[in-house]
């Protein structure tokens, strides 16, 4: 991870460590302790969630709070899944997020290639225009798109959630991939052109393989975004059979007289799990993506 951050730093000069940090030992320990205390504080909410998810409701309502459950009730998970038929929404979310992810990767990859490699009149103007999409609050376009989808009969289908991602995958993805493509030497492309390769071959056989980390980053962001999107399903879907996970979770708040926190936390944990797994598995792509989009922004 650290190495990845290093690589993307503009000009990382070789660091000369003048024997300095040996004297630093005392302060190094102090700084480490501060960092560790903070890290524990950042982890506490997750532990609090987990321990609630395996408690009885009585146990969760015990004052002062118990850090370790009295009895570990793993059946909370199956109860929570049954309570809001989580499995069904999970499947819906997986389908929608997969479609969005594939769409965003494929279409932003192609678009970014056009914007970074090909020369055409007005290209940079168009790029600037597309990038202003970043600045426009989603809520401004929400009402009119709702009306349009209503007129063309897309309401209560997954089309409003998935189709837009197939058209460029959003300004952020395009911007991010363009940043990646720019790190690829132009000579590679020119050499391939001389060898008689056409644009599509260059794109497929040279550019995409070299920019795979960028594609991974776009995939991660698209997945996380779609998986956690509340607005889309809230507005465009109304039948239970099509709803996605965030709506099912929201139902925990609205449908009970006494909130069943233990089930709610179990369901919450299950909903977070894919994001955590994706992050831990692909942390370096995630970080590199953020860094590249941020540094030259």
């Amino acid at each position, binding site marked *: *991870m*650290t190495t990845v*951050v290093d690589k993307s*730093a*503009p000009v990382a000069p070789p660091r000369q460590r*003048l024997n300095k*940090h040996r004297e*630093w030992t005392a302060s*190094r320990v102090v*700084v480490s302790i501060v*960092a*560790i205390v*903070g*890290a524990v504080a950042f982890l506490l*909410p997750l532990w*609090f969630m987990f321990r609630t998810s395996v408690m009885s409701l009585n146990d969760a*309502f*015990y*004052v002062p*709070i118990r850090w370790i459950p009295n009895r570990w009730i793993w059946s909370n998970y199956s109860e929570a899944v049954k309570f809001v038929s989580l499995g069904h929404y999970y499947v819906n979310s997986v389908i929608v997020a997969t479609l969005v992810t594939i769409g965003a990767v494929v*279409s*932003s990859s192609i*678009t970014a*290639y056009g*914007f970074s490699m*090909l020369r055409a009149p007005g290209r940079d103007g*168009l790029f600037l*225009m*597309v990038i202003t999409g970043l600045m426009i*609050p989603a*809520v*401004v*376009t929400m*009402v*009119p*798109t709702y*009306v*349009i989808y209503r007129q063309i009969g897309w309401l209560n289908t997954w089309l409003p959630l998935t189709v*837009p991602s197939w*058209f*460029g*995958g959003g300004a952020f993805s*395009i911007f991010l991939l363009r940043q990646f493509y720019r790190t690829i030497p132009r000579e590679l492309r020119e050499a391939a052109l001389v060898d008689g390769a056409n644009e599509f071959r260059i794109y497929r056989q040279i550019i995409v393989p070299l920019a795979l980390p960028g594609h991974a980053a776009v995939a991660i962001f698209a997945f*996380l975004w779609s998986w*956690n999107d*509340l607005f889309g399903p809230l507005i465009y879907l109304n039948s239970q059979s099509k709803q996605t996970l965030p709506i099912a*979770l929201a139902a925990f*708040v609205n449908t009970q007289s006494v909130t069943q926190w233990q089930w*709610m936390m179990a369901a*919450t944990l299950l*909903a*977070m799990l894919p*994001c*955590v797994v994706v992050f*831990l598995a692909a*942390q370096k792509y995630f*970080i590199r993506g953020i860094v590249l989009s*941020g*540094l030259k*922004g």
Partner: protein
Amino acid sequence: MFIAPGVLGFLLFILGPMLYSLVMSFENYPIIHPATWVGLKNWRALFHDPLIWKSLKVTTYFAVGSVTVTVVVGFLLALLLNQKILFKRAIRTIYFLPSVITGVPVALLWSWMFSPQFGLINTVLKWFGIQGPQWLFDEHWVIPALILMSAWSMGGAVIIYLAGLQGVPESLYEAAELDGAGAIRRTWYITIPMLSPIIFFNFVLSIIGSFQAFTQAYIMTSGGPNNSSLLYVLYLYRNAFSYFQLGYASAMGWLLFLVLLVLTLVVFRVSRKWVIDEATP
């Protein structure tokens, strides 16, 4: 030809709807009936709607708080993580992790965290002898609660800061040290100026993000108590999809867009004074 999907997407899903929205903001459009042109009526109503002002105030309060936390605390955290700490990798991972968990799950987790009696926050406060407030149930504490919650997910900004910190040439620090500058002066005169474009980037990003916050208010508080957490987008959502005032909601959307546009321009203007570009070190 390659750029077609992106350009088409922009025209179909952003520019087109934007313009349509502008038209709608001059219409009365209660969705079940066809739209009728009403001129400036929605826009005038906007300025006389007390809840608009309330929600703008609430949103600004939230935005100022969470932007400050992200920009300032995030910066300090990045400085900390940039030290030669033990278990660096694992510790950084822990700080970044919450930033990938967003939306409804986080909102649910934190509504439980803020439970006045059984929640983690007040328990921890009690260790220090502090009787915690009612948080989400108290008009005066609900926005601070949401700000505290936003601090948990500042990992993204920290990642950007860290990358910037690694780009600051070590030689600058060494020179300053030779000149007798202490750690605080080195941070003030070297780190902050060198990082100013990145601080600026995080600042703008964080403003845009926090003005659009919705999920927290929708899930955790429904805008209450007494509209004290009625974030702007939540109010817009209600106008559009609870009261079905699509024209009015469109005007609200445009107002938000204009507010953000002006804010961003002002920030850009001001930033010229203190952001040091790489070209002029």
